[in-house]
């Protein structure tokens, strides 16, 4: 059996990749995928601990997170499509209408 620390390490790496992706990528779709990556990193941590502590509630949270993520994808992609139709771009640097 592989030690839990490896799973946690993997989850940390995935999360860091996702966070950096959100911060540095310009393409809204990529940013969006990076958010999914962070969510799944969190899921991985959940199952790791559920498994280690033999507690089923971690699995339940994973299901919940996946369901929310799915809903989020639907809404988020719809917003991106609408944005593209309106502005012909998905570059987040160009979407700064809220500038003070």
């Amino acid at each position, binding site marked *: 059996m592989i030690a839990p620390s490896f799973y946690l390490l993997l989850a940390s790496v995935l999360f860091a990749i996702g*966070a950096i992706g*959100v*911060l*540095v990528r310009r393409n809204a779709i990529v*940013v969006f995928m990076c958010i999914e990556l962070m969510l799944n990193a969190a899921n991985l941590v959940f199952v790791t601990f559920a498994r280690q502590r033999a507690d089923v509630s971690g699995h339940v949270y994973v299901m919940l997170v996946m369901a929310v993520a799915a809903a989020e994808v639907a809404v988020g992609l719809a917003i991106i499509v609408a944005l593209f139709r309106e502005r012909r771009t998905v570059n*987040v*640097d160009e*979407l*700064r*209408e*809220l*500038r*003070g």
Partner: protein
Amino acid sequence: MRPESYSLLYLIPLLPLIGAATLTLVGARLPKALVVLVALGGSLGAFAASIASTWVFYRLQETPLEAVLWEWIAVGRYTFDFTLGFDALTSALILVVTGVGFLIHVYSVGYMKEDPGFFRYFAYLNFFIFAMSILALGRSLPVMFIGWEGVGLASYLLIGFWYSDPEKALAGKKAFIVNRIGDFGFLIGIFTLVGLFGTGDFQLLKEAAAGLRDLDEVLKIGIFAGYTPRAVITFACLSLFVGACGKSAQIPLYVWLPDAMAGPTPVSALIHAATMVTAGVYMVVRLNFFFSPSVAPIAMHVIAWVGGLTAIFAASIGLAQNDIKKVLAYSTVSQLGYMFLAAGLGAYSAAVFHLVTHAFFKACLFLGSGAVIHALHGEQDMRRMGGLRRPLPVVFWTFLISTLALAGVAPLAGFFSKDAILARAFDVSRPLWMLGFLGAGLTALYMGRLLGLTFFGSARYNAAHGADVGHGADAAHGHGTAKEIHLHKPDLWMRTPLILLGALAAVAGLLNLPHVFHLEGVAGGHALETQWFDHYLSSVVGAPQVLLDAGIEWLLMGVSVVWAVFWLFAGYAIYRRGPSATLERATRSGPARWAHVVLREKWFVDEVYEYVIVIPVRTMASFFALFIDPFVIDGLFVKGSALGVRSSGRGLSWLQTGNIQSYATVFVVAVAAIILWAV
């Protein structure tokens, strides 16, 4: 004595209030007859309700009546009910207020007939009756204060009734401001008493005053800890007396009353002679368990001396005034001084008795002067009157009776009331008696002068009605510069109140004959009823005292009648042919000239106030208006704070890039920092 509940007391203030409200709201659209009906109905209703209440009071063996209308203020452990009360003192005042008030309403119908502000005038007048009855009926200091302020408002509105004339509007403002100064003292007094006793109710205050065991024991608890009750009560009395000085025109706050003559003459009669200005006297007598020589001797000395000095001071000014209403105004100030002199000496019932008789004869005098002014189309200068005895007989005779009553000629009303005061003063303090006695001589002198100038001699109004006419005249009535003026004779509306008040001025003295009149076998084998009024008021102010022995009292009475008649005749004799040429020559140089100028210019008190108070206040106000307001208030506070917000917003707005990723960077870095710090 426990008061009896009698809820119909509320009708006394309510009826005139309804009248005032109706006239204010729809008066402009009502025909004149209906305005008269509403106004007279309101005041007559109040008079009827007062008589009914007095009757009930009398039938219940003079048990005080009360009507708790509603709980008014409840703060912490203090509650103030809106309570009306009715006892012997209230009945005396309320009958005068509503009775004389009604007569003056009647008179005003004739006097104000042609004024465009007819309905407005009666709305104010009804409102005045309402406020004055609250003042008289209120059974606690806070309720009384409502009436106190209400009559002040009515007075202000009516003094400035012809507001398009800036001088009259200014007189109204002066009355209001001077009264504010007094009212400030009045409020301090109320707060002090409420702070000491926890209540403003007269009944409870009286019980609390009676329950104080030792007036000189230093208080240990409460907000006045460290002071003796006597000191606190003396402070409260003096503060309340400041209020009384304002409302009742005593030194040093009397200056508004002569200027208040800018109002229509019936208003001067009702508010500035008969009723409102006596509120201060009423208040002092009402609180006689504090205003008492045994409780607050210092305050009482102050009151008696202020009263005595005002009596003689104002009378001296009255000698040299040429405006008929100004003479009467200073006479009122002087007579109010007599009332305070009496109250300050503890002769409360004498003070109230003088209040009542003064209300009759002074109202009659003012209404008479109003009839004269009306007849002469607004002329108020006595130098341009004269000879009015024949064309205005009713006015002349009622005026004559009231003048004799005011001067203190037996057996008219003023003789008995003034003599009661002087007898008391003679007994307690000779210097004060001297002031009162000299004041009585001056009173007779200026009234003789007034009578001589106005009603005797030749008619001077025709020739003099030329270009220099018009200062201070009743605006609504002054018109034209016709050579031969047509006298406006008083109509029935005006004559009836004159006659009734004249009759009252003649006979009101019977209410309170001095005890020496208790002669066997004069009135059909029975002794004359004496000191009836003293006994009537005794439930409020204590039993009457007989101090002087009969011989001295007879002597005093004889001397004061001779004294009054002498000066009255002197005034008449000098002035009956008009402004005296001999006197004019005598006052052209030397000390006589100075005396004349000083009196004519009213001892320069207004000028002193102008330079000591008004101009410094104005200067300070200008300073604030020109520097503090634009630079500190506007510049620093208003514009400064706006500028601060705007520039800090602009400064911080560069953070708001609109770039989602920079926000997210801050977010991630911050979360990481928090986690690192926490773990």
